[in-house]
């Protein structure tokens, strides 16, 4: 069973998607259940995976390798693309996060009434590609899934979104596609520069590989290749590796998103339907961060070391700039979107520190932010579903009318502003601790990041103050619509709250997984 576990994670949702697609519309009430059942099974599989994950090993585990494409390139050798899956301490937390968030998203999708068949088919397709993106350890396969996520996402925003959905969907699609192209360029360059030592010897020809395990090893670079680490090949007078690294950080920086490549995010988030926002904030942003760790930092450690300032600087600017923008928002969902930008900045800071604390903290922050931002968007969705309105100033004193909702909001807000025992705190603590421990970063960079902590407390508490305290009132006599949470919403919000608290008090659930791999990862620097 273990040998097919990762494939099952990818292909079960895709199979589900096909099933939904071919079921006649008379079954329309069952589509949501199919998507729910698939998500539940997937989460159970992921928990099995998590449980059987060997925490003492830094290598990839549960590896599945099948030869996929072998193509002769004439004089250049052979191009070898494998169907190659595996998990280690860096992507395991992300797989776990995906399982949780996708399940929450599928519960949240129950409210979708319009064109259910298409919706659930696309949602399951998205689920499969997200997990595929996290577990594939062949660059080509990774890129395939990375690109493939865009398609369902584009339709999910463009068809089921709110008012300006077409604009947001197009913007999201094209912006991220630009990032993908930059990554594609580097991918081709890398595979041209690296050979698989084992197969090359066996076949007597140069075998170009996309295998992550080969790409990290400097010994596998072909002499005189464009991205060779020790030979300074130049492109337009810029060292080629530097050039490739810049392309990567821009490419993944768009996905993350890091200031100044972030502007697709507020639009996409605001226009997307609630479950899609949840998935977008909960997981898709982490794909960018994961790419940063695994690909930009993993394959170009030498350049990354030089680029510490820029990456940390982008992180700190994202933290402060995102927070200041969040402070100015009048739309609840936009406020949350900008807070996401701010909190993802901590991931960059932790990563740039290149310390055990920082990188582990970054992974923890990714996980924690995934849970918290999912909650935040669900919270915004609860209000939007009732009133079709998201403006902060249109609501007041909701806590008297909706006590159960307010409790969930409090957990989400305080989780985001970094209250201890909730996930935001440990992430911020360890990324900043990493910044302070770091030999290559000056202390003031991390100190600036602290400003973000104060600001995030300010905008979250201010929102809490404006929307939830005071005497109960909702604009245009919508008080009657403000019912407290129904069963489905309680399940989603309270299970995420409980999970956040557990992760916040027992950070070892994540750190135990990531620890050994991060240590091995940092040995490369």
């Amino acid at each position, binding site marked *: 069973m273990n040998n097919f576990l990762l494939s099952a994670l990818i292909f079960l949702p895709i199979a589900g998607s096909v099933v939904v697609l071919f079921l006649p519309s008379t079954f329309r009430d069952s589509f949501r259940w199919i998507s729910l059942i698939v998500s539940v099974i997937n989460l159970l599989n992921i928990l099995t995976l998590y449980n059987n994950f060997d925490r003492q090993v830094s290598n990839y585990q549960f590896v599945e390798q099948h030869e996929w494409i072998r193509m002769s390139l004439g004089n250049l050798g052979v191009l070898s693309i494998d169907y190659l899956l595996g998990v280690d301490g860096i992507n395991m937390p992300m797989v776990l996060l995906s399982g949780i968030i996708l399940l929450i998203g599928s519960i949240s999708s129950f409210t979708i009434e319009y064109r259910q068949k298409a919706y659930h088919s696309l949602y399951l397709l998205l689920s499969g590609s997200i997990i595929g993106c996290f577990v594939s350890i062949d660059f080509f396969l990774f890129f395939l899934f990375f690109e493939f996520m865009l398609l369902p996402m584009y339709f999910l925003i463009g068809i089921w979104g709110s008012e300006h959905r077409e604009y947001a969907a197009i*913007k999201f699609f*094209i*912006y991220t596609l630009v990032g993908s192209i930059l990554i594609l360029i580097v991918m081709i360059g890398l595979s041209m520069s690296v050979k698989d030592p084992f197969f090359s010897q066996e076949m007597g020809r140069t075998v170009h590989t996309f295998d992550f395990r080969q790409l990290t090893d400097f010994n596998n670079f072909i002499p005189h290749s464009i991205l060779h680490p020790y030979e300074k090949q130049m492109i337009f007078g810029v060292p080629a590796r530097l050039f490739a690294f810049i392309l990567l950080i821009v490419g993944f920086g768009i996905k993350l998103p890091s*200031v*100044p490549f*972030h*502007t*697709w995010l507020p639009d996409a988030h605001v226009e997307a339907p609630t479950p899609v926002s949840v998935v977008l904030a909960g997981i898709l942003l982490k794909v960018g961060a994961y790419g940063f760790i695994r690909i930009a930092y993993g394959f170009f450690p030498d350049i990354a070391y030089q680029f510490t300032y820029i990456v940390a600087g982008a992180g700190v600017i994202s933290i402060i*700039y995102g927070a*200041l*923008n969040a*402070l*100015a*928002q009048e739309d609840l969902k936009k406020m949350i979107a900008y807070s996401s930008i701010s909190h993802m900045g901590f991931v960059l800071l932790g990563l740039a520190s290149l310390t*055990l*604390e920082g990188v*582990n*903290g970054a992974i923890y922050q990714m996980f924690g932010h995934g849970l918290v931002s999912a909650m935040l968007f669900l919270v915004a969705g609860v209000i939007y579903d009732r009133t079709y309105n998201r403006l902060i100033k249109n609501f007041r*004193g909701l*806590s*008297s009318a909706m006590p159960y909702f307010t409790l969930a909001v409090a957990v989400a807000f*305080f989780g985001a502003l970094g*209250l*201890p*025992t909730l996930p935001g*705190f440990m992430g911020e*603590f*360890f990324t*900043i*601790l990493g910044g*302070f*421990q770091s030999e290559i970063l000056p202390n003031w960079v*991390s*100190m600036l990041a*602290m400003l973000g*902590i*104060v600001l995030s*407390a*300010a905008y979250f*508490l*201010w929102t809490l*103050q404006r929307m*939830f*305290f*005071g*005497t109960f009132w909702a604009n245009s006599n919508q008080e009657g619509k403000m019912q407290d949470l129904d069963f489905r919403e309680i399940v989603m919000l309270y299970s995420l709250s409980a999970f956040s608290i557990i992760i916040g008090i*027992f*950070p*070892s659930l994540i*750190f*135990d997984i990531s*620890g*050994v791999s*991060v*240590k091995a990862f940092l040995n490369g620097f």
Partner: protein
Amino acid sequence: MSAELVILINILFYLFGFSFLLYKRNKLSEQSIGLLSILINFIGLLFSMGIRWSDISDDVISYNWFYISDKLFTIDILLNDLTYLMFFLVQFIALWVQVFSLKYMQGDPSFGRYYAYVNFFILSMIGIIISGNLLMIFMFWELVGLCSYLLVGFWYEKKSATNSAMKAFLVNRIGDIGLFIGILLVYRYFGTLNVTTIVEKAQLMSAESLNSPIMTTIGLLLFCGCVAKSAQLPLQVWLPDAMEGPTPVSALIHAATMVVAGIFLMARIDPVLSPDTHLVMAILGMLTMFFGACSALVQYDIKKLLAFSTISQLGLMVVGIGVGAVNTALFHLVTHAFFKAGLFLSAGAVIHHMQHEQDMRKMGNLRREIPIIYYTFTICAASLAGIPFFSGFLSKDAILVAAFEWASHQQKQIYFIIPVMCLVVSSMSAYYIMRQVFLVFLEREDNPLELISSGAKSLYKNMAKRIEGIVNIEEDEERQQAEIRHSEEDLLGFLSKIGFMEVSCIIMAIASFGFVFAVNPFLTESSWFFQTFHNEAINYQWVIYIAILVALNGVLLGYIFTKEESFQLDNDEPGPKGEIANFIFNNYYLSETYQKVFVKPLLWISPKINLFDRKMIDGIVNSVGNLTISWASLNNWFERKIIDSFVGLVAETSIKIGSYTRQIQNGKAQTYIITIFVCLVLIMILLMV
């Protein structure tokens, strides 16, 4: 059973209390909520006493918490006398505050929520007390901040309450950032967060390395946390506003326990603090003490006066730590906890009696109406004033003595300003607390009881509507008057009036007597406190006599001046007359300054930044998009007009040629013959040439 197990079980009890009460807050009756909560607290108190009297040595217990790669982070429980003392103190005061709240919060629709929060607060406070490493201390430190936020903003429908709560949280956050950086630097330079290890390492340091800039930086950053939490200058602005919360909460959190957490932390890590840090603490503490006392002098709000008094007393404790008298400062922490809790609870009883009127100008002669509260308040006030035979005298004067001792060891005479200021403030506190006693309880010439009953009470009937229990104020008043008359007749009637509120006040008042702490009320050394904790040497016996004189002088002046004071009752102005007095009354307009300097610019700049984001950064993205579209349409134009029209031109030309040549092919033999002939001629000409 080992001590740490007892404490952990105790914490679990509070956790249960919190979650159970929060869950069942609307389903249980007030009696069962109160009973459950008090029972939990009582068991905790028994535990704490059991630990205190059993034979336990200092101990650090570590559990593995999590690994970051191979670095271990532990859960450390530090057990020493200070832990046990605070463990007892917090639960003791919390117990009586909870008893008090039974009556005070009676009829409040959120009764259950209140008790749940209190349970959570006690839990977090115990967390700070037992934590043996800085990470845990910081976590619980933030959690008590959350409790403070929740309880200050308890009546969340009141805008002022939630504003104050937010302010408290944010101001504390700013201080916490300093603490946070301090902790990170400790981790960097000591390689651990374990308090015991850090203290041991610091004690092994030479004097020079302890006084190095980096140690001073660490010390000052850690002190930042104390500045915010213990309301020191310039971050003390949140504490007076925090009085928006229910009064028992002010007694528990904002007087006796949470605000002293900063002092507690400083005491825990005292060996790490460099001499320069100590000096800064002494000076800042002195300033806080003085300015807080100044503000207290001119307050009319019964709770705000006490809040400023708390700020001032916290300043005194910081001075104590600054001059190196850590245990003396802790002693004052303990005595202050009792008498200030007593003062707040008594003030709460007064407020309850006055139907939520807090302006002291509208009070007076309450001695007759609530005699028990009068006595408890006066006893606690005497303790605050530093009158002999009361606990405040012992601890306050011990700090004074220590300050003189410290100043005499310094090279320059200028350092004597600190102990002298302590004396001055001592006199001031005697003055303002006497003034308060006078205003609230004693008879004033211009302010007879009748005026109060008829004027103020009817004015504030509206406010009283909050209290659902009281339906008819008139009736209630008559009953009270009758009770007063009755109570003056016999002791039994007097005792029969003792309710939950009175009991709590009486207990606190008893705990404010000097004999509770020391056999000889004039000799601090004889206190049980200093038998457990090492006492710093006392040589300056004469200081104590001066202090007594100064305190009595303050009381006397307070009596004389307050007697002269007169107010117009219809005067709704909150502050006193005069610009300087108003300046002091408003806490030096610090809040307003911060509002202007930090908050306003922030709220001004953030929409601008957002505009920049939307117009500039997103503008670039959009214009790239639009540019592409324009380029595409230009291409399209070129395509259709130039390239395609060329193709069209070719086609049209061939059509034209075709249509022209078609005319030749008209099917007439003559035309063909002419054409053939012409062509032949042309070919011949060509051939000949």
